[in-house]
């Protein structure tokens, strides 16, 4: 079974969100990395990019295919995980930790309420 930490928010497209003050750290879930397997490249968003909720913002590539990553909520990219440039497999080995992808400054912290909580995400992935 996939790991779904209780203290995070989730999207239908399998991103997770960790609220850190007025910022949101974003990655892809354990379930998503298990489906992708073998992450070999992560195209990181540029710092300063403004993005709407569900806007395409990054790309995660496995051996087999390229998958779009979406912004869970509206905001501005303030940091991208440069460690993934050298070691994209961190997305597989530590999806909720070292494998985070980017940090958004949230346009409105209230927006996280529209995301799934852990229970709802667990139900979504069966």
């Amino acid at each position, binding site marked *: 079974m996939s790991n779904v930490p209780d203290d995070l928010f989730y999207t239908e497209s399998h991103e997770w969100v960790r609220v850190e003050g007025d910022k949101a750290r974003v990655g892809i879930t354990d379930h998503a990395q298990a*489906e992708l*397997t*073998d992450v*070999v*490249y992560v*195209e990181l968003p540029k710092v300063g990019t403004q993005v709407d909720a569900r806007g395409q913002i990054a*790309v995660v*590539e*496995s*051996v*087999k*295919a*390229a998958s779009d990553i979406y912004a869970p909520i509206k905001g501005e990219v303030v940091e991208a995980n440069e460690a993934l*440039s050298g070691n994209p497999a961190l997305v597989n080995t530590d999806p909720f930790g070292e494998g985070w992808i980017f940090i958004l400054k949230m346009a409105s912290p209230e927006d996280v309420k529209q995301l799934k909580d852990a229970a709802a995400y667990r139900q979504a992935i069966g």
Partner: protein
Amino acid sequence: MPVSDAASKFTPLYEEHRRAGAKIIPFGGWLMPVQYTSISDEHQAVRNAVGVFDISHMGQLTASGAGVAPWLNRMLTNNVGKLEVGGGQYTFLLNEHAGIIDDLIIYRTANEEFLLVVNASRTEEDFAWLQKHLPDGVTLDNRSAERAGLAIQGPKVVELFQKMLGTETTLPARNQLQDFAYDGVKLTIARTGYTGEDGVEVFFPANDAVKIWRAVLEEGKSLGLKPCGLGARDTLRLEMCYPLNGSDLTPETNPIEAGLGFFVDLSKKDFTGRDILQQAKENGPARKLVAFKMAGKGPPPRPHYPVWVNNERVSEVSSGTLSPSLNQGIGMAYLPTANARIGSEIQIEIRGQKFPAVIEKKPLYKKS
């Protein structure tokens, strides 16, 4: 690889794949395992130990009767006259424009009997084409439904078969085919493959598929054998620059452009597509299928990504992936002959950005 939405066919091993935790995808009209654990792990198992692939989806046609050899020599590019009984060769089935209908391996199973192992997605088309051109006295059968097969590939393949068939067992030589018996099942074993490693393709009745599959997994356990999916099959063959039908070989391409003239016998006076191939060989083809490697780190190339030379879009990627052995993006593309020189720099456009790549000699991977 080409994926069809109309997948409905199952190999006799479908439930075994599900049980082994495979991810299933539609491929050429079949539901096939793309991977069990990870493409990279399965790839490395084949390079370093041994891996088993279900190839039951591949077509198996038999042709027999008086005059079968001269007829096949008119239908196919290679020369079946060079085959002794038990011998096999890679060859092409072409249309009148010398376009590739299919690439296949043909074995002489008796003096006037041949086995054709063809691509899954082309089986019906091949059969219909051959049937249409069938002369009196030759019988053509599509045995695909009643037959199954496994590709068993990797440096430990001989060890595996000595465990299964006895320590005295000698596998047939490269491209040769021979019958063996395993627990009452007739195994037709051909020393061939699509990975660049030592290996075999084994054919047997579909009814025995589960038994043979389980035996191979069990006997192979101590050798580090892994079940492998189409994902690893694609990365392994692309490192060797073996073409994939539907991607690198299509009715719009011919064997000379694909760099596979070795499998075309122009000394044969009469076969479909001969005049066009003769001309392509004499004048040099207008384009060539080249192999390339990405220069430095970057996203892996994928089929249909645009290829640029000197600010001009000249082509698109026909096959591309990340090579697990080289840990680098690799691919193939048809390029105008003037741009196809080994060592030349090209650019691959990925999501609007151009990344440098270099044309390399085939194969892209060589065992050290």
